[in-house]
Each structure stands twice: as structure tokens, then as C-alpha cells.
């Protein structure tokens, strides 16, 4: 999955936030819709899309969608 595809898949996990709000540099934790459920969706996305396991601490350790994409690659 490319970074661009990851940003699109990331955006798909949100219902209320418009797709144009998502870019590699988006600080996802600042989004109003970011919460425990969307966090779980992203963890599932990492498992489904990359076969990689990320934790709650991983999600807290980075800020942007691109940071997270890069972190998943290191797993």
C-alpha cells in the first residue's frame, strides 16, 4: 500500500470528517472524530492492509498520517 493509498484508506475509516481533510501531513489526533473507535479502525487497517500489528502506544507516539505510515513499515 502506497502512502497515497494509506491516506485514502485512513480517510475511509471516518464518517463525518470530509475526505479533503486528510493528507500525509494531517495530525490525526487533532481531528474531532478521532477517538477510541477510530483508533481501533486504524489498528485493524494496519493488520488488514499490511499484516502489521500496531498498539495504542504506537498511535500516541506519532502525529501525522505519514509518520504513522512510516512507523507501520518498521514493524
Amino acid at each position, binding site marked *: 500500500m502506497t502512502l497515497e493509498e494509506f491516506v485514502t484508506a485512513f480517510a475511509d475509516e471516518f464518517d463525518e470528517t470530509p475526505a479533503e481533510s486528510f493528507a500525509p501531513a494531517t495530525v490525526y489526533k487533532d481531528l474531532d472524530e478521532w*477517538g477510541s473507535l477510530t483508533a*481501533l479502525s486504524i*489498528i*485493524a487497517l494496519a493488520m488488514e492492509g499490511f499484516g502489521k*500489528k*500496531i*498498539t*495504542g502506544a504506537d498511535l500516541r507516539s506519532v502525529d501525522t498520517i505519514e509518520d504513522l505510515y512510516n512507523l507501520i513499515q518498521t514493524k
Partner: protein
Amino acid sequence: MKAYIKAINYALPEGVLTNEEVAAMFPEWTVEKIEKKLGIKQRHITAENETASDLAIQAAEELFETTGIDKEEIDYLIFVTQSPDYHLPTTACVIQKRMGLSHNLTSIDVNLGCNGFVVGLSLAKAVIMAGQAKNVLLLTGETYSKYMHERDKSNRTIFGDGASATVVSTEGMAEIGDFVVGTDGEGAENLIVKTGGARHLKPANDLEFDDFGNPRSSDNLYMDGPAILNYSLEFLTKLVNDVLAKNNLTMDDIDLHVYHQANIFLANLERKTLRIPPEKYWVCIENTGNTVSSTIPIALCEALRQGKLTKGMKVLSIAQGLGYTWGGMVLYF
């Protein structure tokens, strides 16, 4: 000799916590969002003086009344719960007295969570196969609501209280096939009530709030959602394949999948991971939420009542629970 499910029933407390009430407590939730994301419309919650054993007894008494099975014939009692009436004695003993069951009875409590029904059924089958008993009453009952912090949005939204009663016998409506069961205590702290047991007897009074405003305290139910999600997805396919292999079956042989269901979010992920068509995957949490060890028996009961589960069908049941401990089995209806 073979072992069978002879009858099955469930009971829920009268008290209900609706999505409207949850949304009123947690304004960041909406009624629609809870239902869409979790597939739960309401969960039943026990009153302060109502316990898991009360619900389990209700489920069992109704079962005896409606099926005509003589409760005098019960010679083994298993109560699966993590909400016992007391630290001691065994709640199953209290249930024996309250239900007027035979004195010639083995009574044990089994402390297991979401896979409690699967493991309980494996125990019941073992007891029957060994000739130790002819009619096992397997009860499950859970009231996690009593362990939750009142501001715990995640757990209060997901979990409901409930109980089930199953009679396992030498004849009945569903033959109990072979089991695969496993354990990995590495996950023990990911779903836990840390204090109150002998290790940490006194309350810790260490309440704090996480990034999402959820309370975290050693004195209440704590669930590490991300860790539990990863655990649920990571080994699911292997567990399903192992259970199928143990029963000499393939995925195509299974007519209905009745799994432990935490919520619709996880259920859909599991269904997609396993590539199960929706019509073969039974979902039954809308009116109960996650009742822990009672989700599978409740789902089986409702599938039978609603005509979704009929004679001749093979059912695969999988449950991954806290501990961690997991299990799977095939039932031949």
C-alpha cells in the same frame, strides 16, 4: 459414547440501558453512531442487588419448565462466571441449594470470560464421555456492569449483563464435536479488574483518564482495546482452521458460524478476514450487547427460535477471551 446439547435457554435482567441514555451521558456519542459502529441498540443491566447467579437460575428454571427435563436428574453443575456471589464459597453450591438440585451433584465454578461457554461445554462433554455424569447443567452468567466506572464510555457501551443455561446429556438436539482450546497468560493485564483478589486485596484508588477521556483504574474493569483487537484478529484464521481440521471438516461444510460477538465492528472484521458470506454469519447482539460468556448460547437460542438454525446444520463456534484463553468447536444439529 457421545455428548449432546439437550436444551438451551438464556435470561437477561429487566433493567435496560438504551443508546439514548448512553448518548445523554456521553455527548460525543450519538444514538445513530453507537448503533452503526457497534451494532448494539441496548444492553440489559442488573440492579444493585441482582447477581449473575440470579440470572443463571432464572435461565435454568425456565429451561426446566419449558422442556420438562427433570432437574432431579442433573448430576453435575458448572457455573461459568467472573462475577461470583462471594470470593467463597463456590457460587455453584449456592445455586444447588436455591434451585433444589440433587445432593448427588458435583458443583464447580469456572472463572472464564468470553470463551467460557466453549470451555464449559468441553468440560461438560468430558464429564459425560468419562461416565462421571449423565446430565450436566452448564450455566454462564456475567455482570461486568458491576465492575465498571460510571464514566467508562467504551465498556458501558459494549457490555451487557446476561446468563444462559444448557443441559448437556447422552442424547439431545446437537452433538458436541471436537474442541481446540488454548491459553496465553501474556495477555492477562489487557482485560482485567486488578484489585479485590488476593494479589491486590485493597482498592488502589489510582483513577486516571486516558487520551480519549476514558477512566482507567485498577479498581474497575480495564480493557486495552487495541491489544484485544490485535489478539482477536491475529490468530483467528489459524484457530478456525485448527478447529475445522480437528473435526475433519472444511469451511464449506459449515452451515452457520456462531461466534462470540464483542460488537458488530469486530464481527465484521472477523467475517471479512475469514471470507464468510453474511448469510452464514449469525449476529445477535443488537438487544444484549456483549454478554461475555453468554453471547454464544444467546445467539444459538435466537438462531433456533428464529428458524435460522435447523436440524442437520453444522455450526462452528469460536471465542477468544481474556486471559488470554480461546477456544473453538463444531456443533452438529
